[in-house]
Each structure stands twice: as C-alpha cells, then as structure tokens.
C-alpha cells in the first residue's frame, strides 16, 4: 500500500483520486467510502486501493451488490451525520439507484427546509473510449444536471481530480462526481498540500487555452480532444479558446459568456447523446445571455442519439478531433458547412 500524502507528485488520475479520498478521510473522521468491491479489491479501478487497510471496515464498506441499497443506506448514514462517498462501479449501473438519488438525495434538504443535509458524494467511473462491454461506457450526466438539488462535476486532470473530490466531499450538498475512465491512467502534477479553500471552487470553469475566434466548451476526457483540436486549428490560423466546464451544475456562465462575448462563436462537445443533453443546456443559456454577440449558431458535437454502440464501433460514436474541427469550420462559415434543413 502506498500512502501518498504530502508534497508535489506526478500522479495518474486514479492515484490522485485515491490520494484525495485518503486525505478527505484523514481530515474528517465522518467521511466513509462505500460500494461494491471497494474494500479488499480496492475497487475495480483500484481507486480505493489501500483505504481498507488504513481506515478499517467501519469506514471502508464493501457493500452488497445493490446500487439502490448503497445510495439508500448512504442517505441514512448522512442523516446520522456521516459524509458517505459512494462508488458506483460503472456509469451504466447508476440507474438502479436513480430513485434514491432523484427522490431522496436531491430532495431531502429542500423537503426539510434545510434541516437535513445530504453531504453525499457519488463517484461514477464514467464514459467511453476504453473498449468496454455494454453498459460500461455511459454518459448519464444530463439526467443529474436536470435534477434540482444535485451538484454535478466532471474532472479532466489529476490535480482537479484530487482537489475537486475533496471539495465535493467537503460540500454540504450532494455531488455527482464523474471520473472519466479514459483518463484514469493519464498522469499529471498534483500539489498534495494545497488547501481546498485556496483552490478554485468546484463550481468554476477553467479556460484551459486562450483563443479569439471560437469558444470550445467541454468537460471530462473530451477536454484533451478539444485541446488537440485547438492545436490543429492553430495550424490553420484559427484561434480556439477551450473551456473545461468542470462543474456541470451549476455551470459557471460568467466564465462561459465572457468567452463567448469575445469570440462570438461556440462549439460544444461531449460524449453523451445530444438530444436534451448538456450541450443543449449550454446553447440555450448562451443564446439567452449572449445573443447579440453571437455571429453564428452554436454547434453541438456530441455522441449520436443512440444507445452506446459496441466497443469496436465506439470510435464512430465519440466526437473526435475531425468532427470537432468540422464544426469549427461550420461555425466559422467555412466550407463543409451543412445547409440549414429545408423547411
């Protein structure tokens, strides 16, 4: 068991998440982690590796195989004053817990007029691109964004993973915390000593690349794809500003609209299907708030409106660099544009 606790280190996102959990547990003895296979096995992605040895079975709880049970008992633990961190083994297995999340976790604070708090963090290994089996590559974030009472965040790098997980656990509100599986092994520098209060709040977006022509909004593993697209576009003389939303609910519209007012053109990319997805929310709010600054319709580059396809075909579903650049072309009114649909 390696216990990473201080200093600066180059860590994979997986290790950074583990370090964040360990730190949160060390800082607050009311923090518990629970889920399927998270104890002895350390989770199927090993994120909780070593925690059982370090904190014991009272705080690292291997649960029965039942997601509603996991979230439902977490609600009870929260009522008792604990801060449960729940692991849902894969994105596609969160649905059995949907009722407990939507009707209980999200609503108890409101229903009790603030008397009950639900400081529950629901960690979800998330999204595609890893060649996984059916139900293992889902992007369900819009369901939770549409659910009032939840906060929803998605991380894109080890430092955010470490810091935002601690912030999520420290939040008195429930947080659905999306971890891109595709990035679990991606490395980055992590400052393990930073105080979470000093870090950017979990609710803020980050401009990860400055640009002037097009605002490219995304989150999670798509941030890397967006950065690649921005680099490729630069070669063609197009300057793309890339924003990592980090928080999907609330969205940091201050940062987003500032960029859009500057560029006047927006492309949004995510893996989830587009219909009533996160990009739709962004476009609606951006249009409302920046209409007169827009020089072209904001465009979506998303997964198709299909169930997640088999692994060998996922590359045709996931929005890649080419599809993003195609949209950039269109938003800049360059060739390849699709005509408006005939009425």
């Amino acid at each position, binding site marked *: 068991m390696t216990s990473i606790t201080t200093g600066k280190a180059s860590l994979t996102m997986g290790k950074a998440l583990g370090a964040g959990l360990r730190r949160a547990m060390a800082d607050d003895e009311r923090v*518990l982690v629970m889920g399927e296979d998270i104890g002895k096995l350390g989770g199927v992605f090993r994120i909780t590796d070593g925690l059982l040895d370090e904190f014991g079975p*009272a*705080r690292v*709880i291997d*649960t*029965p195989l*039942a997601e*509603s*049970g996991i*979230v*439902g*008992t*977490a*609600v*009870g*633990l*929260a*009522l*008792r*004053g*604990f801060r449960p961190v729940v692991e849902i083994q894969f994105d596609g297995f969160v649905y*059995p817990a949907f*009722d*407990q999340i939507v*009707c*209980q976790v999200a*609503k*108890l*604070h*409101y*229903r*009790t*007029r*603030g*008397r*009950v*708090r639900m400081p529950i963090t629901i960690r979800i290994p998330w999204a595609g691109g890893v060649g996984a089996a059916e139900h293992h590559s889902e992007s369900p974030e819009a369901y939770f964004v549409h659910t*009032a*009472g939840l*906060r929803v965040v998605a991380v894109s790098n080890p430092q955010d993973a470490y810091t935002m997980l601690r912030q999520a656990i420290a*939040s*008195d*509100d429930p947080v659905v915390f999306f971890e891109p599986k595709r990035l679990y092994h991606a490395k980055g520098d992590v400052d393990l000593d930073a105080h979470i209060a000093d870090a950017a709040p979990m*609710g803020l977006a980050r401009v990860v690349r400055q640009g002037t022509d097009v605002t490219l909004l995304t989150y999670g593993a798509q941030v890397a794809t967006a950065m690649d697209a921005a680099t490729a576009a630069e070669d063609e003389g197009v300057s793309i500003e890339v924003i990592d939303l980090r928080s999907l*609910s*609330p*969205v*940091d*519209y*201050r940062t987003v609209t500032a960029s859009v007012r500057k560029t006047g053109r927006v492309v949004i990319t995510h893996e989830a299907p587009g219909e009533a997805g996160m990009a739709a929310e962004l476009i609606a709010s951006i249009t409302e708030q920046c209409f007169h600054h827009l020089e072209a319709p904001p465009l979506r580059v998303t997964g198709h409106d299909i169930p997640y396809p088999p692994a060998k075909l996922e590359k045709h579903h996931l929005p890649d660099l080419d599809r993003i650049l195609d949209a950039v072309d269109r938003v800049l009114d360059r060739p390849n544009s699709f005509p408006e649909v005939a009425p």
Partner: protein
Amino acid sequence: MTYTPTTDAEHRSDLDEPVQLLTPAGERRRDPRLDEWADDLDLDALRGLYRDMTLARRVDAEGVALQRQGQLGLWAPAQGQEAIQVASARACRADDFLFPSYREHGVLLVRGAAPADLVLSWRGEVASTYDPAELRVAPPQIIIGAQTLHAVGYAMGIQRDGADQVAVAYFGDGATSQGDVNEAMVFAASFSAPVVFVCSNNHWAISEPVTVQAAHPIAGRAPGFGIPSMRVDGNDAIACTAAMRWALDHARSGGGPVFLEAVTYRMGPHTTSDDPSRYRSNDEVDRWRAKDPLARLEALLRAEGAFDDAFRADVDADALSYTTQMRSAAIDAVSAPPLSVLDHVYAEPHSGLDEQRRRFSAYLDGFGDDEGGAR
C-alpha cells in the same frame, strides 16, 4: 385462473396465527414468546397506551374532517392501526430514530409532534415540518419503501458511533414488494445493523389485497434473509408493545435486525381520495371492526377497574385540545411567499439558482403591490 392471485384479503397469511396477548373481547392472554416483555405492563402503562391511541384516533378523525372541509389537500386515514403505531413508538427509547411512512400519525404523536406538524404538509404548505433531529423521526416517506434503506443506513451509523440506539423502519404490506425493502433486509442482515422493521400489514395497498404482494405470510420472508421475525396481532397494543420491546432489545444488544409483521387493518379509505367500496366488502370491514384495538384495551381497563369517567374525560380533553390546535394550525396557516420556493434547494450558494432568484425576484417586484398580476 391459476395465474391470478386470490383476491380475498384474508388469505393464506392468516394460516399462521399472530401472537396475541389481548383478545378482541379484552381478555388478557399469555404467550410464552412474549410474556417476559409484557408482564411488567401495569395499569398506568396500559392507560398511557390507551390515551395515546385515543389521541391518534381523534387526530385521524380530525384530519379526515379537515380534508372534507377543504382545509387539507389530502389525508391518509390510520383508523384501526393505532395499536401498532402507538405501542411500537412508545416502546422506543427517546434516542432511537424512527422512519415512518405517510400513514404513521400515531408514531409522530408519540414522538411529540406538534399539532401543526400533523396538518401543514397534508395541507400542502410545506413538504415537512418538524426538525428530524429533534423528534428523532425522519420526514414521513411517500416513495414506497425508500425509508427502509435510510433506516438501515442510519443503523449502520449507530454501529459506527458505538451507540446502542436502534433505527426503526415503518412500512406497509404493499411496500414489501419493492426492491428497496428487500435490499434493506439484505444490507441489514449482512451488517447486523440495529434496525427493527415494522411492517403494518393492513391487508391492503390501495386496492390491492396483500395476496397480490405476498404468496406467503410476510413475516415468513425475513428469516430467509437471516432476520428473525414475528407476526403479531397489530390491533393488540399489549402484544405490539411486547414484540417491539423484544425486537428493540435484540437489535440494541447487538443481535442485528428484527422484522415484525403487525397484522392489522385499514378501516378507512387509503386516502381521502380513495373509494374502498370499489374493491372490498363491508363484511370484511365489519369483521375487523370487531377486532378494534381501542375497544379491547378499554374493555380490559374497565374489567380492571382502571377506566372511569374521569379518565375518559381527561383523555377527551387532551384529544380535544390537540385537535383544536390542529384545526387552528390548518385554518390559520399562512402560505410562504413566492420567492421562498427557491429556498433550501442547496445548503451552499449555487450560482445558477442565485441568478434565478435574482430574476424571479425582479419579476415579482414588477407586480408592485398588486397581487393580481401585472395585467
């Protein structure tokens, strides 16, 4: 047809006679399974039970009346179920934590709920009233069965705190069909959580007889999960007290979860919106009327010379005072202002909702003092 469950609500589950210590006629019986938990119940204790059960019944009648008069949006009558509700809650320690459903008015009463707590949510003014931490009662649950998992989780928390409290999950016969209730049993058994499941089998889930939910007596399900269980006469306040004491003691002393099936009956409609004549016979209701929980306790107290006019007058006065306060709480209720609908969604600032509040507030300001709208 073989694939249709029997629609007779008094069904196979009555093959196992529930434990009874007080007959419908008011005679005290003995039963070795529960005697040790009932023998110390003196007349004062029985009068206390009677008082609370009477209060529960009057509160229930008042709830129905207030709904009929348009003061409440809805009410879920609990008439007939007073014994299990009151007796089980009275058996609890003040620091145990209870997770009721929408029908457990008697539980709230015993825990000290104020008259307003009984009416304001049914009136539609608030989703819940009392502070759960103060009463040590979760807000009554409407999503069938969801609270059983909360109780188990709470009980897991008790274990972690090294405390000797117990969590109590209340639910109905219909709820036993929900996945959540079964998962609650799995978790409770696996973790030996100090939780008592109190299933009030009132024979009906709206129009569905218990036989649609359970082909086998409900209490028989728990042992298969590794949870000891008991069927108890849910209209017998003495047996309910004793069974609950046994269950609480078992859970409190580290024995793990216990499951009680209280066999009772919902005398009224499912809610004030329901019309039970569509699905059950008057005969059936009459049969159960003969097993009334209050009547039998009154008969016992009378036989023991512990029930006189003064006591009756005293109980009536208490009930009247409470229901009068319920009535005024309903009638005098002032609805919260428009902007309050945005309160308490989050415990911490939320940029999206804060912006929405700003806009809605500006919008509302646009009306000035004219309640009637901008036009």
